[in-house]
């Protein structure tokens, strides 16, 4: 790279209105300002899906399987958004599976032993207080980890390795190893299923809102750049990116709405709601599952946190150069503590989703989840060297991991062989990413 120095002196130029410098020769990808790595992952996911569909005799790319896939991914995807920040800051969290276990257990016990007797069956306060208490405990556990890491200087690997053992043991201790069934029906909605889905109409409402947000965000970003007379993307490029986003939303909605209740369940639903069943049968769509919407909402919030807030900026700056961040006056210890607290809270949300899906909490829940979460973040382009990673990438990574497992289940591959494949894919994915980084950075 040549040094671009000027021949003029440094004397301050009069504050001329910044004339937009000409953008370099526009390539297609350059003009669209696309994230090449993200596109590559979308491509890889498409290949995985098509190959599995072929190998599993057309059972993979069905609305039913894709719907299931989305629900199965939700819990890991939620946690991967926090793991991105942890890894970006050059730390690791090995304890998320155990935090999931203990918070899930506490939520189930608290709900059954205290909240239900106090408020009564299916009282709305039960679900709210269950979640609040679970998330608070998760955040507290994370804060404890963060404190030991940031202020006592014990490496995150060790602290969270200890946490992995401690909280798994604590999950057992909460109910002495018993499996605790969930009692609140509202809470169970978080697990998905026929009840925990929003149906065709509301799915379209969500899709419409998402498209409106995409368009407004595009317009807003463009206005901002116009305000300062910065170089703008060509209009066609804006249309292509916003259009692609909306198309993806619409496609996803079509898929989840194409998954309908089995005939028997549909009849029962019709009876319960006083509908008459037409002779050709009743098509009642699942629509988006609640856990998937929760995961997507968290994805949006976490993307906002990482890219638009001071906290997110500091996380990345610390990951890029901890010393520089410190010299810039950033309280790096506090940021570290907050990142681990956030990770704990997200693990608790993951716990709510996965316990609700199983209708009960067990002390083994979330075992090995820490590895899937880390793998999702890393496959999603988070660099273990710190400083680089995106929330969307990590969530896509979670989907890739779950797609592999789901595909192999459809192919009737035994679990040990599934693990072998997933392990190899993880290593290969990171190797490919390393090659990419060397080539393009």
């Amino acid at each position, binding site marked *: *790279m*040549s*040094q*671009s*120095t*000027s*021949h*003029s*002196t*440094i*004397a*301050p*130029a009069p*504050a001329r209105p*910044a004339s937009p*410098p000409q953008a370099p020769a526009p390539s297609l990808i350059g003009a669209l300002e696309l994230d090449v790595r993200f596109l590559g992952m979308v491509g890889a996911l498409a290949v995985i899906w098509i190959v599995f569909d072929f190998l599993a005799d057309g059972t993979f790319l069905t609305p039913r399987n894709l719907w299931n896939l989305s629900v199965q991914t939700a819990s890991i995807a939620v946690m991967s958004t926090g793991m991105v920040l942890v890894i970006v800051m050059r730390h690791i969290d090995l304890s998320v599976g155990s935090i999931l276990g203990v918070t899930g257990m506490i939520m189930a016990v608290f709900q059954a032993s205290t909240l239900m007797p106090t408020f009564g069956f299916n009282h709305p306060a039960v679900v709210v207080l269950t979640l609040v208490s679970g998330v608070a405990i998760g955040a507290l556990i994370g804060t404890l980890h963060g404190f030991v890491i940031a202020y006592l200087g014990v490496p995150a690997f060790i602290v969270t390795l200890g946490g992995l053992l401690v909280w798994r043991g604590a999950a057992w201790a909460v109910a002495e190893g018993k499996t605790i069934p969930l009692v609140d029906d509202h809470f169970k909605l978080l697990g998905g299923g026929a009840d925990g889905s929003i149906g065709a109409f509301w799915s379209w409402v969500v899709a419409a809102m998402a498209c409106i947000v995409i368009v407004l965000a595009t317009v807003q970003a463009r206005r*901002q*750049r116009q*305000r*300062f007379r*910065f170089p703008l993307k060509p209009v066609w490029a804006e249309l292509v990116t916003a259009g692609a986003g909306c198309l993806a939303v619409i496609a996803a909605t079509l898929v989840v709405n194409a998954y309908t209740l089995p005939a028997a369940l549909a009849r029962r639903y019709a009876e319960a709601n006083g509908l008459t069943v037409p002779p050709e049968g009743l098509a009642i769509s699942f629509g988006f599952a609640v856990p998937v919407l929760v995961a997507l909402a968290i994805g949006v919030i976490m993307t*906002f946190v990482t*890219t*638009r*807030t*001071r906290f997110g*900026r500091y996380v*990345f*700056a*610390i*990951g*890029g*150069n901890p*010393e*520089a*961040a*410190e*010299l*810039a*006056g*950033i309280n790096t210890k506090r940021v570290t503590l907050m990142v681990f607290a956030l990770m704990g809270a997200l693990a608790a949300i993951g716990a709510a989703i996965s316990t609700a899906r199983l209708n009960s909490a067990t002390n083994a829940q979330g075992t090995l989840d820490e590895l899937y979460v880390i793998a999702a973040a890393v496959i999603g382009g988070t660099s273990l060297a710190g*400083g*680089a990673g995106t929330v969307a990438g990590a969530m896509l990574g979670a989907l890739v991991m779950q797609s592999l497992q789901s595909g192999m289940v459809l192919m009737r591959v035994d679990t040990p062989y599934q693990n072998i494949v997933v392990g190899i894919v993880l290593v290969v994915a990171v190797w490919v990413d390393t090659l990419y980084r060397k080539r393009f*950075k």
Partner: protein
Amino acid sequence: MATQGSTSPTASAPLVDMRDISIAFGGIRAVDGVNVDLYPGEVVGLLGHNGAGKSTLIKILAGAYRPDSGEIRINGEKAEIGNPRDAKRYGIETIYQTLALADNVDAAANLFLGREIMTPWGTLDDVAMEAAAREVMGRLNPNFRKFKEPVRGLSGGQRQSVAIARAIHFNAKILIMDEPTAALGPQETAQVAELIKQLKAEGIGIFLISHDIHDVFDLADRVSVMKNGKLVGTARTTDVTKDEVLGMIIMGKSPPGAIAGPGAVH
């Protein structure tokens, strides 16, 4: 003549007065009873071999280290500098030898690191920060275009201009430049010299740290020389020759034109 140890805060009180500063790391006294001062519109060269304690001394002023003993006076009043934020509050800005840039974020994010411009909604105003970055970088390095790229992708000179821009954008009163031209070619070095003269004319006090006397001698009003953590002496550049200053750096010998410090050999 400006001397050390001036007493009561007066109108002519030095901008910075570091008195009897000491700091030790694991038994090694990196800085040992050093006195230096700096007046508005003055450039003081801080010279010495690698490991003489120059960078450690200025890191104390910049808030990166807390001294074991000694005090810092700013405009004659005792200053409590416990961290880099405190230093910045006193108008002390630092260009570190390592540049201290976060390589993975862009120029604007580095420029405003720790002092981000926020929107009324409490989110980062990246567009406003980029606009300000374009303005200040336009003065320092008019050909600079890579506003969207992580600073990792910039050349040494461009990275240096980002670090300098960060220091001068926030109305510094006291500027610390640690080996500011180490990564630069001759032309860029001349540019930095030009900048120093301009900032000096604006009344900013500058500590210029270097191990190379040639970088400093022509720009500095005074030089303070350190050796093995101790001050060899301080001299006006008009009162001593380059060779004499070299003698201070290499042998720790304080010439007649200088005020000898505790580190001078007799």
